[in-house]
């Protein structure tokens, strides 16, 4: 907390540059993309890429809270698969009696399940006093096993009667903007408001920057962190709501390794992995950078299919280095 305040008081100009880092990196990647491939800047491609990044972006907003409060959540990918599975099963069960309204009830139930999953993580970390890395590694395995068990290793498809009424949630748009993007914007705005404009947001940073100091100044670190995990769970559920209509099924590989993408997006965005500093908009830029890079790898013929992951890794490290130098 102290470091944040002194920095703001000390050199506001330089901080602004450093904060621009992720956006400059995004602009750069987009510029390179436009130069090397004519198909990149087409409306459909941009719309596809932005819509696809919505899931990671939404989950990463929650992760920004968890990470800036000084914790880490490795279970988000598995939790996403689990919540998706529970939601589909609920909707299928309710469909015969409620028709399309089953989607609304199922989504509401999904939010509750997501929040409870987050609460579980939070309580293990704060009340159980277990390192977040280990605690969420444990729940990661639990959620993944539950979805595998629920699906017998196969897939849980949504009822055919629900596919058409639900489809617009991923494929539809409002004034030309794809719906998942609208949802992401809403989540980001609410997230930014909570993190930057409320007492809770400041406590989150305080808990992450120095838990002891925060405790002495009367902040309940445990409560702050538990709440961060609940926010994370809600974000996962929101992402799941947008995810289901895309392929209409949950499988044991749903959301696999997303936790790593989420953490990468958050860190590229300028949030400190050790906590104490959160950047919501940067997180969104981070999620977009990841998706644009993946998209460019396919569009350009320069990289062998065997080396795609290596090039992605190099670009991410370069982006972080550039960030450091701008500072």
């Amino acid at each position, binding site marked *: 907390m102290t470091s944040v305040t002194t920095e703001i008081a000390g050199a506001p100009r330089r901080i602004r540059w450093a904060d621009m880092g992720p956006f400059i990196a995004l602009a750069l990647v987009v510029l390179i993309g436009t130069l090397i491939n004519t198909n990149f800047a087409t409306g459909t491609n941009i719309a596809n890429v932005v819509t696809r990044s919505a899931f990671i972006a939404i989950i990463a907003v929650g992760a920004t809270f968890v990470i800036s409060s000084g914790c880490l959540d490795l279970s988000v990918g598995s939790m996403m698969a689990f919540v998706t599975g529970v939601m589909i099963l609920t909707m299928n069960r309710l469909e015969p009696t409620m028709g399309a309204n089953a989607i609304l009830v199922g989504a509401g139930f999904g939010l509750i399940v997501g929040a409870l999953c987050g609460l579980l993580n939070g309580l293990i970390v704060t009340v159980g006093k277990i390192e977040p890395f280990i605690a969420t590694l444990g729940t990661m395995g639990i959620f993944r096993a539950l979805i595998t068990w629920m699906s017998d290793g196969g*897939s849980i498809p949504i009822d055919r009667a629900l596919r058409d009424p639900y489809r617009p949630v991923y494929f539809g748009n409002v004034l030309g903007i794809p719906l998942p993007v609208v949802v992401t914007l809403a989540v980001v705005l609410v997230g930014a408001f909570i993190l930057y404009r409320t007492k809770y947001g400041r406590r989150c940073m305080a808990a992450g920057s120095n838990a002891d100091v925060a405790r002495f100044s009367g902040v309940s670190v445990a409560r702050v962190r538990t709440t961060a995990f609940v926010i994370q769970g809600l974000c996962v559920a929101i992402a799941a709501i947008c995810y289901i209509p895309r392929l209409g099924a949950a499988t044991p590989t749903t959301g696999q390794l997303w936790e790593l993408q989420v953490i990468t997006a958050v860190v590229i965005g300028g949030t400190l992995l050790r906590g104490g500093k959160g950047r919501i908009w940067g997180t969104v830029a981070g999620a977009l950078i990841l998706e644009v890079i993946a998209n460019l790898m396919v569009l350009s013929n320069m990289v062998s299919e065997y080396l795609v992951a290596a090039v992605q890794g190099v670009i991410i490290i370069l982006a972080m280095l550039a960030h450091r130098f701008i500072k």
Partner: protein
Amino acid sequence: MKRLTQRALTLATAASLLALTAGGAVAQDKRTIAVSIPAATHGWTGGVVYHAEQAEKEIEAAFPNIDVIVKTSPSATAQVSALEDLSAGQTLDALVILPFTSEELTGPVEQVKSNGTYIAVVDRGLTDPTIQDLYVAGDNIAVGANTAKWMAEKLGGEGKVVVLRGIPTVIDDERIQGFTDVMKDTNIEILDIQYANWNQDEAFSLMQDYLAKYPHIDAVWANDDDMLLGVLEAVKQSGRTEIKYALGGNGMKDVIEMVKAGDPVTPISTPYPPSMIKSAIYMTAAQFSGQAPMRGNFKLDAPLITPENADQFYFPDSPF
């Protein structure tokens, strides 16, 4: 205290000795077949588990003297431990194994064999083929080649296709090899081959990118039906109509349903059936129950699944 532990130890040894001899006596008329397979972590292995459990029930009902034990393991190391546990607790007459990896499992399986156990290997071969008595596998090259032949014929020997491949493994390499080798002799141009890791989501994204990159695509081959579902969703969203065929492979039940319904874009599939574990268990049971000789290699063909024969490949209760 010391004497007490000592006494307890002797007792325990005596008990285990007794159990051993008893086990040996029973084994004379009762045969035990252990089945070691990967845990259900994705559609195909989910199918393997389903068919192994099915076979267990059917064999035990048909041959009361045969006991089938199915063990699933989530990783190669876990499978090695499972083998140790299985062979430590009892004498195994036969082991049917779908190894996680060839290299890591070869030694442990050899260990089991040294006790005189009959070894049936499924799908992935061991590095030392002399260990196995029976080898049952699908033909991955044929999966690729048969699809390619059909596609080339339907496209009249020319056109532009894109390919989605799975996780970098021998299975994936062989399918791609079978496909590209056939396509080489035609005028069909393979525009692109990229990894989508046998994952629906990644296949969806990759197909969106292919559609953005290439203004004209005649056909798509996803070398697995799971990926095909992602591909179809991306094509549907794009509204592109020039894509005549989108084919997969493996024989997933959702895709077989499409084949049965005479879907114009996906009228065929090629089997690489998880039920091959069942073939191996049945053949092993035959070896012991009817003494029908079952030593050798058994390679399952990959005939096209068409609306006419789709029923043979359709398992509505299987997760895959």
